[in-house]
């Protein structure tokens, strides 16, 4: 069953410049669906239309044209019903009350979602254990570090057991350790509770660790939609070779291969696989040079995504 269905969604904003009003199309007719329990990364460069899309899907913004349902609800006209079943986490906007402790906020949220006292207490404890955040709950929110606050934000977003979790740049500003921990928690929530995850992020590692599927949006249009692993495979026009020679080669000259860098006997090579197969390059290397060790690597996902962003628009 599809958790999210989007058909030809368009959003235009009126802007004022030099005293004249004009319309800017932030989202230009996007169509996609997200299955229950999927982990989707919805990515794109700044101003691509990611946040506008997420705000339409959560009912904050009304689209100019098109249709969408989230868990069967039309977000902008049935927002109050929908928000009982979704969780949201915006990296740049806090949903916690700064003057309260996280626990006091959770209890206020429990009232908002009309949870039973016993259920609320149980959920708070369960989530505290799951997200390893119980010790943070009695600290005033304003005294928490960003990483600690985000764990509390995630707890707050999960209190009412949402079926879909919308995350808008959730790891922004976190250090490496906190980011990794946060990603693990999202995956855990998905695996243990089958929560559908809709993630926007600029951080390629968020996509690598969290998402199984990726939609790339640019200039308001979807320009790519596939599994993360398929994206790697279909867009790879290069492979990286890390080679250690037994003795330094006098001159390394192989067709369709560039030397990226080398030091001593170790070489990093780029193979243009659209010109020549990796197998024939390996054969030539092994036949003509004394190779001690060799490994074949994919280029980083970041490069692949940059390539998608920079591809000419259809």
């Amino acid at each position, binding site marked *: 069953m599809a958790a999210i269905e989007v058909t030809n969604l368009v959003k235009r904003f009126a802007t004022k410049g030099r005293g004249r009003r004009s319309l800017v199309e*932030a989202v230009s007719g996007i169509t996609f669906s997200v299955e229950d329990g999927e982990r989707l990364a919805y990515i794109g460069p700044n101003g691509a239309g990611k*946040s506008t899309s997420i705000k339409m899907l959560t009912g*904050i*913004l009304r689209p100019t044209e098109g249709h969408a349902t989230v868990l069967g609800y039309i977000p902008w006209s049935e927002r109050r*019903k929908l928000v*009982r079943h979704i969780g949201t986490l915006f990296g740049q906007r806090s*949903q916690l009350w700064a003057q309260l402790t996280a626990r006091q906020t959770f209890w206020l949220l429990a*009232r908002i979602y009309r949870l039973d006292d016993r259920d609320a207490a149980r959920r708070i404890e369960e989530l505290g254990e799951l997200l390893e955040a119980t010790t943070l709950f009695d600290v005033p929110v304003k005294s928490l570090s960003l990483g600690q606050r985000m764990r509390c934000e995630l707890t707050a977003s999960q209190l009412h057991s949402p079926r879909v979790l919308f995350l808008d740049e959730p790891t922004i500003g976190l250090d490496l350790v906190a980011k990794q921990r946060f990603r693990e928690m999202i995956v855990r929530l998905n695996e243990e509770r089958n929560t559908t995850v809709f993630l926007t992020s600029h951080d390629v590692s968020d996509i690598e660790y969290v998402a199984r599927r990726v939609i790339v949006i640019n200039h308001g249009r979807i320009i790519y939609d596939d599994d993360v692993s398929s994206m790697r495979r279909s867009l790879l026009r290069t492979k990286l070779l890390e080679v250690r020679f037994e003795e330094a080669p006098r001159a390394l000259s192989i067709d369709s291969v560039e030397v990226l860098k080398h030091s001593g006997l170790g070489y990093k090579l780029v193979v243009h696989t659209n010109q020549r197969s990796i197998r024939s390059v390996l054969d030539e290397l092994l036949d003509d040079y004394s190779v001690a060790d060799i490994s074949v690597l994919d280029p980083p996902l970041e490069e692949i995504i940059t390539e998608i962003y920079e591809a000419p628009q259809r």
Partner: protein
Amino acid sequence: MTRTPYWAAFTDGIRRTMAAPAELAVRIGFFAVILVVFSSLWRAATQANGGMIQGYGYRELLWYVIAAEGCVIATKPRLIEEIGDDIGSGDIAIDMLRPVSVVGFRMAAEMGEAVVRLVCALSLGAVFGLVSVGAPPSLEGLLAALPAALLAVGCNLTMQYSFAAAAFWVEDAKSTWFLYQKLIFLLGGMLLPLELLPGWLAGIARLLPFWTTAYVPARLMSGHAEWHLLIVQLGWLIVLVAAALAAFRAGERRLVVTGG
């Protein structure tokens, strides 16, 4: 049994205000200064006018000031600006992602905060009044003034929400707090009773909702047990709540939030 979200917001507002005693003390301290200044002013004014101005003696005027200033000081002076900022920055979106009325939930919390400040201000004012001029002029007026003070705070809050909703349409709407404050000063009867205004201006003031925020409880407190004023206040409160809800409902439909 679960408490409703609005009751939870109200009690949370009370708790939050009590948890910041320094902020409360500053505001009540400012109220005390106003009382001292106005009591001197009205004493001099009544003495210069043979002890009475438009039916108000010094005692009546002092109790008038206590109620009028107490009700206004109980609400945030720049609430319009605060709400306007939240609308302009898009932070209001977080409130919209909760299954409650944005205005209802926020106003319940503000009412909780205001009630604490109102109780503190009126308590201090009562001590000041008792020491300076003795008990309020009429027990019946006092009994009517207490619910009127709560209604006054409610009217003030809802009116500020209605004003602030303009931020959904106009970029610089938050600055209307300055105009609003002046309207409360003059047409709301905060600075002086409406009877002291020119007749035409007092007539206009009685047609507008501002007088519900200060004049009504102050008029009752000053010994005029005019119970019908409570009905007027209640009527305006209903109108203002409906206006604030309608303005926010319309505003939320055209909210513009760009970026993260």
